[in-house]
């Protein structure tokens, strides 16, 4: 029985997870994603001798392709390639959540700046324009009028890379100074936080503060439904939600969430909870 633990950088989260795995007695081998070389057409690799992979890579691209490659080579991961692929792409997430009937912010997808400007007009200002791939609130822009939309979208289109030409536009929600996050592990809602900020981007990487939140049944049910849409009952994700006049709406789902600021305020040892579920899964597989 062997767990592979893949990282790009060992953040506080990964250190806590490794210590929790040690307490669970899980035999764990660490791999640095920057040093991986996977033989897709056959060949030995220590990763292939592992029974389960826990990929905590910081890089969406590396996480997606390593997970997909290992799946193809017969080694499953805590979050499947489908989960990583869906959660790592905001547009794909919106599509999957919509198909499952999960309440969301009104969202448009367009493929030229001109069509995206029309989408902003139809949604009504202000709108929020986000890159389909990205984290920590980077390049997320609130746009208040047509002139600003045209300028931003033209600039985005010129950034290079095909993803810069996929325009993801959402209605702006005047949230009450906070958004909510629920940590879900294998079908259990284990902890909930509110992220509070004076800025409209409530991301802890941008200075938002965290408070523990009582897990209401409404919050838990919606987060579990969103997680189930992305990965059934076998995934570890953090579901971000916002309180709106229409009720709770799901914003996005994260497949490798940070939680160092969340365990203290919630009183839940999130690393221990996640490690316990991984240990359980490993026992079933091995």
């Amino acid at each position, binding site marked *: 029985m062997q767990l592979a633990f893949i*990282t*790009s*950088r*060992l*953040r506080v989260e990964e*250190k806590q997870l*490794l210590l929790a795995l040690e307490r669970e007695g899980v035999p764990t081998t*660490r791999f*640095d994603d*920057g040093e991986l070389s996977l033989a897709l057409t056959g060949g030995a690799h220590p990763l292939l001798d592992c029974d389960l992979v826990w990929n905590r890579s*910081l*890089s*969406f*691209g590396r996480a997606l392709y390593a997970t997909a490659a290992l799946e193809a080579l017969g080694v499953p991961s805590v979050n499947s390639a489908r989960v990583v692929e869906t959660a790592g792409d905001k547009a794909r997430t919106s599509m999957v959540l919509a198909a499952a009937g999960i309440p969301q912010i009104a969202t448009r997808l367009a493929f030229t700046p001109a069509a995206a400007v029309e989408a902003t007009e139809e949604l009504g200002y202000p709108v929020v324009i986000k890159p389909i*791939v*990205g*984290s*920590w609130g*980077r390049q997320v822009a609130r746009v208040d009028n047509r002139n600003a939309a045209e300028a931003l979208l033209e600039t985005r289109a010129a950034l290079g890379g095909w993803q810069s030409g996929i325009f993801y536009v959402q209605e702006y929600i005047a949230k009450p100074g906070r958004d909510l996050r629920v940590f879900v592990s294998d079908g259990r809602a284990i902890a909930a936080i509110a992220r509070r900020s004076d800025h409209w981007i409530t991301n802890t*990487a941008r200075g938002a503060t965290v408070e523990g939140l009582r897990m209401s049944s409404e919050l838990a049910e919606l987060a579990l439904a969103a997680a189930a849409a992305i990965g059934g009952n076998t995934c570890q994700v*953090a579901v971000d939600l916002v309180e709106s006049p229409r009720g709770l709406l799901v914003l996005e789902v*994260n497949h*490798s*969430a*940070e939680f160092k600021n969340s365990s203290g305020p919630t009183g839940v040892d999130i690393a221990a909870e996640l490690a316990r579920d991984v240990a359980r899964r490993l026992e079933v597989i091995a």
Partner: protein
Amino acid sequence: MTATIPACPECEGALNLPTDLIAGELVACDDCGAELEAISLEPLTFELAPEVQEEWGE
């Protein structure tokens, strides 16, 4: 930790390390703020941590 603590590779300042440091862990230099990665414990060696890429995040 008994090993000699090396200086920060960026500014040569003294590093303040956690007692339970593990290989690969990130530490910040108190003097210059550089983010360092403990690439090995024996010998204790630090390098500048890899820079965050565009699609890195949670």
